[in-house]
């Protein structure tokens, strides 16, 4: 798979279709984002470990020349959401979409482990987040107890936010005194986390970077996934897949509520 991606990257670079290809590079045993501008560098292009490049594209936007980028399903969803936030320009990107393996999907608890436009790889079915299933079966009080316990562990390191490919704000409301008083640990519950969770209700890509970054393993992604299911059920809307505006930005004529609710 890696070879195939290198070949495609090389073709578009040599053909002058793009000025560079954004991917991961292994150098001195370290893997990190790199903008390949010469085809002969591509030998060091690797696909793992998984690492989101979406925020790197934001840093490289706006630019004059087209750019190639290697993306997994969640990366592609992030790019679509970031383009709706006017942070990247999809038309300026040449997307090399790669699929994840079943093992990778299981590792991430990913329901959609492939991009909508697959360049390389075979699509495999995703997996349901096991915690989500468990939580939905709980009573209200059990769920409340579960989250109290989880959120009480928070060290307020902002790792979840920093790792999120969609969190691109210049200043963050999680750090604002009026929302979350300074100095308290654990931070005000659950306001601290819910600010992020609600902001991402219509945007989350399900990549799981927030959980991976959390030093105390708070499963915030699961909360986010539950909201994504709600958005799909209520509005027929799939974050990262639908390219139209979020239902929150439209009128009821433009995007009605599917379930009969509120009079």
């Amino acid at each position, binding site marked *: 798979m890696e070879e195939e991606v290198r070949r495609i990257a090389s073709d578009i670079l040599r053909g002058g279709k793009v000025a560079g290809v954004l991917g991961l590079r292994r150098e001195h045993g370290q893997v990190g984002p790199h903008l390949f501008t010469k085809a002969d560098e591509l030998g060091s292009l690797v696909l793992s470990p998984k690492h989101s490049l979406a925020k790197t594209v934001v840093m490289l936007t706006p630019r004059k020349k087209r750019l190639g980028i290697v993306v997994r399903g969640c990366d592609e969803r992030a790019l679509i959401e970031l383009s*709706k936030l*006017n*942070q990247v320009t999809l038309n300026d990107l040449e997307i090399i979409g790669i699929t994840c393996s079943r093992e990778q999907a299981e590792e991430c608890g990913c329901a959609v482990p492939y991009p909508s436009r697959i360049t390389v790889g075979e699509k495999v079915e995703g997996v349901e987040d096991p915690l989500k299933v468990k939580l939905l079966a709980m009573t209200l009080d059990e769920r409340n107890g579960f989250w109290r316990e989880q959120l009480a562990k928070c060290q307020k390191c902002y790792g979840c936010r920093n790792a999120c490919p969609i969190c691109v*704000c*210049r*200043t*963050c409301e999680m750090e*604002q005194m*009026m929302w979350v008083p300074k100095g308290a640990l654990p931070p005000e519950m659950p306001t601290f986390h819910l600010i992020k969770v609600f902001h991402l209700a219509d945007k989350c890509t399900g990549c799981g970077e927030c959980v991976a970054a959390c030093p105390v393993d708070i499963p915030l992604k699961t909360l986010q996934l539950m909201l994504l299911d709600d958005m799909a059920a209520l509005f027929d809307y799939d974050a990262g897949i639908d390219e139209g505006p979020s239902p929150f*930005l439209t009128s009821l004529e433009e995007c009605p509520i599917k379930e009969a609710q509120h009079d």
Partner: protein
Amino acid sequence: MSEETPKSPPRIGVFVCHCGKNIGGVVDVPSVAKFAEGLPNVVFSTDNLYTCAEDGLTCIKDAVVKHNLNRVVVASCTPRTHAPLFMSAIEEAGLNQYLFEFVNIRDQCSWVHMKEPEKATKKAMILVEMGVRKASLLEALEEKEIAVEPSALVIGGGVAGMVAALGIADHGFQVHIVEREERLGGLIGNIEKVYPVKRAASSVISDLERAVRASPMIEVHTSSTVKDAKGYVGNYDVEIQNGGASTFHRIGAIIVATGATEFKPEGMYSYGEDGRILTQLELERQMREGKVDGVKSVAMIQCVAARGEKFTYCSKMCCSVAIKNAIELKTKQPAIDVSILYNDIQMPGEALEKVYTDAREMGIKFLRFPLKARPQVVADGGLAVRFFNESLGADDELRPDLVVLSAPLVPREGAKELSRMLKVPLGQDGFFFEAHVKLRPLDFATDGVYLCGTAHGPKGLQESISQAMGAASRALIPLSNGKVRGEAAVAFADEATCIGCGNCVKVCPYVAIDRVERNGRFVAVVNSALCKACGTCVPACPSGAMTQKSFTDSQLLEMVDAVSQEEA
């Protein structure tokens, strides 16, 4: 008026009103005033029998001066009726009028908890605390004014456009009429007579055109289009294109009078298959040219393509057009047989009803068909109209010499393009969509752009003319004032925080927010003259960059905190 937010720490005065017995009879008003005295930043607190009475207002004004107050809280009735009174009182005392907070302890406290005086008193105290905490964070606001260019653009040179232009020019403002065609007159230029007044259409148009051409304030651009319009109320830069040449104009207000056109029902009712199947407009031309003089029988079919066939709407004027043409035919050749196949005759009002009665008395036949089974036209050498005749309760057939189809009005081509250019919406039917169906029929939600005539939807000429005069009247508001004054509690985007995502632009119903490039990146900028102060953009902002003045997050959260910290 004072424009500055006081730099000194808040010094709040609280005035609690008894409203005679209305509040004082339930709530322990002196205790509430005493409680207020102990709240942070409150330096003066008192109770009044009637704060709204002359002595109450004097009390406020005196206290502002004597205690050097820089914020005022009145706890009394409802801001919906009394806020302007208190706001002007503090302004008279030298404070910016927005350094004022209203607490409703009558309509929403004493009157609704009459049997629980203690609880009502406690509630009044918390309501006052909420008001005081918000007041501590109030800022001086101003209603932004923008200058208005004393000129108007009327798009469309039909009757509505000309009437609107004359209405504005009469008041001394420059008007540009832009008409796509070579001549003025629009749809009415193609017809013979105007009903129910029974006047020659040509005389209507020539009268108007003469007045338009005679007016020194009106410049007519025929064979021209509006190529571009940028800006906002009072300040549009408009490019008018004539052939290859463009002229540029500064415009204060715009009236959309682009009209409508008759739908050509190709492929329906055998239209286009036989020269004897015409639309009403085509019939009028043939009548003018004397081509129908020998015709002995005519069948007119109403609701062609309308009312659920191809278009959902009723075209409103087709019934009167059909009856008009039927009467004209019958007047010229009394022996002619005219049948009108209809479903519901739309002739509202006095004058039209009379025309309808006249038509029946002249012997014009009215035959009703159900919408479920519309007539069929067969051109089989002769012409056959087959339909279900409701009054017979049976199928029926006519064999007329001429079939005339009453087809609806449809929007002019280019409506979509214009709607995008002016940032005003179209409805599902493709006609321009007004700001409020009931009370703002001639406005758009966007200030400075107005609407009249059939661009708004099918209607008769009289109604179009009323609308045109009305639209001129609306446009004259900003023009006569020479300025527009915006709301005070407007939204404001912090450029340093804003990431330029454009969510706010998408939710703003008034097109008051633009996404503009500043120092190499995009940010939202609110045009405070256009903002109507709803605050819908605030929750849409992901980064907390958007604020609504007088309803800031910190102000609202202070109020929430006052309640959550209330002792149980």
